[in-house]
């Protein structure tokens, strides 16, 4: 498969998504180092975990002094949507063995989104792979640059980098808030987490908000 963004509309969309999202990797790289992860640990999260929200959650919780098990549990719950994307993509991709492993690794928000925008299965496959591999390349490249940059400038709070982490999270939530219920649920989750912060170990105020998702999800 040769990628040709000049001629092919699918490639064009895929690559512009890949680059824009990839740039955001620099924010993650900086967040990782700010939270006390080494450059290697930060880059390994982008190479192996490769799912933005989960990665930010891991560095966020560990950086706040949370237990590894809280970080793993939160990242796992956040990553569960990728299972549903896989479910959607499997009948279109029809891959087995090693190819399935590779396809699984690049099953994320962006690759699935670009695939579902297309009108036939050939374009869906193309959109999925070009976006998935493109995001993988750019995300990892910019994670490394962000981590390198943040470790070069020393104490992050002097530069206001500690403000960049929650700001980056806002960018992740914003596109998911699609109706009034979502805003209400978001506000309740913030209130819940802040109420628990003084009394519960770090990480618990976050992971327990899943109960709120279950309650609101079953209500309708």
């Amino acid at each position, binding site marked *: 498969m040769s990628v040709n963004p000049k001629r092919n509309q699918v490639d*064009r969309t895929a690559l512009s998504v890949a680059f824009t999202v990839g740039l955001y990797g620099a924010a993650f790289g900086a967040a990782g180092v700010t939270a*006390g992860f080494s450059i290697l*640990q930060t880059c*390994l*999260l982008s190479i*192996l*975990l490769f*799912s933005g929200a*989960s990665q930010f*959650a*891991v560095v966020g*919780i*560990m950086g706040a*002094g949370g237990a*590894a098990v809280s970080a*793993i549990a939160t990242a*796992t719950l*956040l990553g*569960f*949507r*990728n*299972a*549903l994307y*896989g*479910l959607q993509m*499997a*009948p279109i*991709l029809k891959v087995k063995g090693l190819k*399935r*492993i590779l*396809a*699984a*690794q690049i*099953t994320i928000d962006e690759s699935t989104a670009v695939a579902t925008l297309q009108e036939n299965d050939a374009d869906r496959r193309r959109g999925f792979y070009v976006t998935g591999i493109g995001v993988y390349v750019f995300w990892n490249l910019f994670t490394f640059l962000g981590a390198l940059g943040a470790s070069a400038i020393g104490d992050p709070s002097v530069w*206001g980098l*500690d*403000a960049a982490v*929650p*700001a980056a*999270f*806002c*960018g*992740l*939530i914003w596109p*998911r*808030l699609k109706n009034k219920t979502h805003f209400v*649920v978001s*506000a309740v989750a*913030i209130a819940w*987490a802040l109420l628990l*912060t003084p*009394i519960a170990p770090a990480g618990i105020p*976050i*992971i327990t*908000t*899943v109960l*709120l998702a279950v309650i609101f*999800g*079953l209500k*309708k």
Partner: protein
Amino acid sequence: MSAIWIAVIGASLTAFLNKYIGHSVPEKWLNRPSFMRINALVPIVLLSALVGVQTFANKKELVIDQRFVGVLVALVALNSKHHFRWLLSQLQSHLRQFITGFKELSAPLVFPLMPHLMAR
């Protein structure tokens, strides 16, 4: 092994399992309406809680500092990006009306850019 290493390796493993399971189980196992609704809300509650804690918590204390200002700036930026898109779409439709008269002249110049502008 430090806690950070455990978190890095553990979370990477479960993330891959999540992705691989989706590609491997029959659709009816996961495709249930209430399940889908809960799943849409899970990232919202977890990420919202993270924003709250990352903005206001200093260990076990709640404080208001420069991080809160950073988040406010981010929210304003995200909100104006939304409006910026609307502005851009208005400009595009005006531009399109304008160039219909000059199609032969401007088409080679503007049309290659159009899909790119629309994708924004």
